């Protein structure tokens, strides 16, 4: 019996684990991935923090964030995060993150899209990698138990504790862990657009679906950020820092059609419109000092070379927008607690309501580290008797059924179809007709799932089984995202309805999704002032 189970192994999970250890909590980190490999390592641009008030101010950071969120945010949460940003950078630096520095020893900072000032601290364009590694190294130092390759199946909230069941990927066994409290740090769901996403393919929101089934409320699922500049062939991210440094966007006729440093939702839509009309779109950084690029954007230069086959120092980079970040997720209060006692959520899987309808570049790394540490400060050691029951029976039955099932429908093919339809009909532009069509498709796929078995009958490292479980979660979450998109009859930030192209005051409110007896219900909250 632990004081705390943290599920996930990214920057938020590890920040929370370090804080838990500091508070002397008996903590375990459990992840479906191996250490050092979470999606956090893919963050390039940086982490926002106002470090001195010479030109910038915390108030300006707050204002930029609220504006980018299209007024769909919790101002107090944003204030708390922006005020805590400087200390967050110092904390990370003291964990060993090698931030880029200026000659005088101050932190280098750069301007990302829609920011009024240069305030993103960075480590070349390896910001996420270096943060993740320093946090992992610190967890090793603190001898925090980090269990790898355990896939979360179910959460069973009890009065005194939480039981969580996992598939031990290495053995194929269903196992149970129990703790007074559980923090979900399982990442976002941008890969429900698999093939059209800059994320790992397994970022399909599996942890969020487990939470939903356990009675946890979700919110604002319809807000999915499409990043404007990902490579045309592979959807691999080219960070906003390329535009911040002066990169320009144009079509094959060298016509510039958008201010490159506007908010991501606007730039993405303008690029996508060009592509839909048959144009090709490019990001051009050839005019920027090559020495500067090689020092500050080495990863991006390499990625363009390897995956697009061009030299970005000499040629423009072919780009397109791709699903990148999910603003919605597990609905949490200001202590990051979900509506179910003892279940907390942090990082991209949570909706802390700081990003609203459109996340500001450089705020995600800040959010994941800042709120992770804040969350754990509200969790305390408890005493008293706890009766632990075996909760693995149902999950074992589900797994055995999959093994026994005859494979009549190939889920790999269905998965591809789902992702394509999601991108086409529930993507950058949406309307009622398209959303209803994709909803009907998903309903049919859900009915077919009982015919989707697996060929591989091995127990150890059965990655086909893991992919089927993930696909099942992808279907559940896609269904919820489509419903949420259908019910928000307006356009706001990343959610753009062609049939309701304006922001509407009566929709300046969060949309809560919950599930009861297998049925989803949507409720809109109070209008935000």
């Amino acid at each position, binding site marked *: 019996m632990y004081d705390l189970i943290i599920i996930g192994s990214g920057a938020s999970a590890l920040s929370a684990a370090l804080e838990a250890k500091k508070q002397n909590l008996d903590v375990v980190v459990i992840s479906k*991935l*191996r*250490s*050092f*490999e*979470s*999606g956090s*390592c*893919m963050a390039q641009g940086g982490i926002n923090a106002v470090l001195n008030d010479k030109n910038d101010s915390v108030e300006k950071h707050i204002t930029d964030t609220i504006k980018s969120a299209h007024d769909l945010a919790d101002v107090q949460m944003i204030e708390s995060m922006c005020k805590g940003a400087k200390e967050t950078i*110092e904390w990370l*630096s*003291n*964990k*060993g993150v*090698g*931030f*880029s*520095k*200026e*000659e005088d*020893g101050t932190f280098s900072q750069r301007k990302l899209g829609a920011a009024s000032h240069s305030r993103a601290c960075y*480590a*070349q364009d*390896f910001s996420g*990698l*270096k943060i993740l*590694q*320093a946090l992992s*190294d*610190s967890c*090793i*130092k603190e*001898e925090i138990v*980090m269990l*790898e390759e355990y896939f979360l199946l179910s959460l069973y909230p009890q009065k005194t504790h939480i039981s969580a069941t996992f598939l031990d990927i*290495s053995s194929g066994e269903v196992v149970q862990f129990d703790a007074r409290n559980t923090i979900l740090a399982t990442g976002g769901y941008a890969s429900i657009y698999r093939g059209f996403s800059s994320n*790992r*393919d*397994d970022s399909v929101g599996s942890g969020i679906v487990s939470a939903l089934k356990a009675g946890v409320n979700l919110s604002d699922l319809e807000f999915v950020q499409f990043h404007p500049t990902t490579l045309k062939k*592979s959807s*691999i*991210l080219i960070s906003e820092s390329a535009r911040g440094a002066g990169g320009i966007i144009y079509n094959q006729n060298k016509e510039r059609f958008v201010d490159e440093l506007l908010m991501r939702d606007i730039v993405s839509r303008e690029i996508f419109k060009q592509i839909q009309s048959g144009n090709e779109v490019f990001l051009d950084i050839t005019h920027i000092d090559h020495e500067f690029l090689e020092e500050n954007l080495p*990863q991006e230069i*390499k*990625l363009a070379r*390897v*995956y697009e086959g061009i030299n970005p120092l000499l040629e423009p980079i072919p780009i397109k927008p791709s699903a990148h970040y999910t603003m919605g997720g597990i609905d949490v209060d200001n202590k990051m607690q979900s509506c179910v006692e003892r279940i907390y959520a942090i990082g991209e899987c949570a909706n802390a309501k700081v990003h609203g309808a459109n996340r500001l570049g450089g705020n995600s790394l800040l959010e994941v580290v800042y709120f992770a540490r804040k969350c754990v400060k509200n969790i305390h050691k408890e005493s008293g008797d706890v009766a632990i029951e075996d909760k693995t029976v149902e999950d074992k039955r589900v797994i055995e059924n999959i093994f026994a099932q005859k494979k009549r429908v190939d889920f*790999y093919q269905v998965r591809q179809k789902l992702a394509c339809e999601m991108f086409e009909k529930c993507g950058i532009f949406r309307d009622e007709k398209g959303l209803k069509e994709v909803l009907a498709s998903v309903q049919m796929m859900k009915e077919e799932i009982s015919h989707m078995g*697996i*060929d*591989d009958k*091995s127990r*150890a*490292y059965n*990655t*086909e089984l893991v992919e089927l479980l993930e696909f099942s979660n992808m279907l559940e979450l896609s269904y919820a995202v489509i419903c949420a998109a259908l019910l928000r009859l307006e356009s706001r930030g990343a959610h753009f309805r062609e049939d309701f192209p304006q922001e509407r005051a009566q929709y300046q409110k969060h949309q809560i999704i919950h599930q009861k007896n297998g049925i989803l219900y949507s409720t809109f909250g109070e209008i935000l002032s």
Partner: protein
Amino acid sequence: MKVSIQKSEGLKSYDIPLEDTVVLEALQYIKENLDTSLCFQRGCKSEICGCCAVMVDGKPVLACGTKVADGMTIQALSYHEIKRDLIVSKEFSKDLFHKTQAYLERCDETTLSSKTDEKRIELQSDCILCHSCYSVCPVLEVNRDFLGPFALTKVFRYAYEVKEKDQKTKIDLIQHNGIWDCTLCGECAVVCPQGISSKDDIIQLRIKSATLGYSDPKLSSFGGDFGFDPSGF
């Protein structure tokens, strides 16, 4: 094209109708269309998470960043415990980091690093822990207790960290099965996808060790007094 894969149950060949794609996408194609039991790691798809390193024709590469070609043979990384097919265990790396204190042990929070300080360890902290270097290191052929290239590079990264108050302990911990066991062959540098040379880091760590009074144990076995001794005359 045809590719061969060393699976746990034996070498298997697959015909794949793909062109101009990377090894990782070829593996995914095989899994989805030809052999769903094939096991491999798939992560960021952009050479930054380090999880998909495999041996292609005997050389370690990132599957996501290497073009697939007709006749290739793909197998798991060398000197690693194979879990299944192309999946190896990397959990031992955490033990390596723990026993060499490859982390910030005693942080001097008042010290602010300069640009020069950061630059000194910038490349070493680009390591993505793909273990390519480990899988080509010839020392591991004869000594499986050798700490290996990536762990020593991580030690370098913290041994030259100005905020670290106790750099010396890290140096103490890499004397045995560490820096002096390296043959300086440079294979690690050749295969590193991030352009890191663990060999160069090891040379620097040897110099730092020497300033702290350490010397190559292989040389001290000569008695430490070889060479011209004027007092003999």
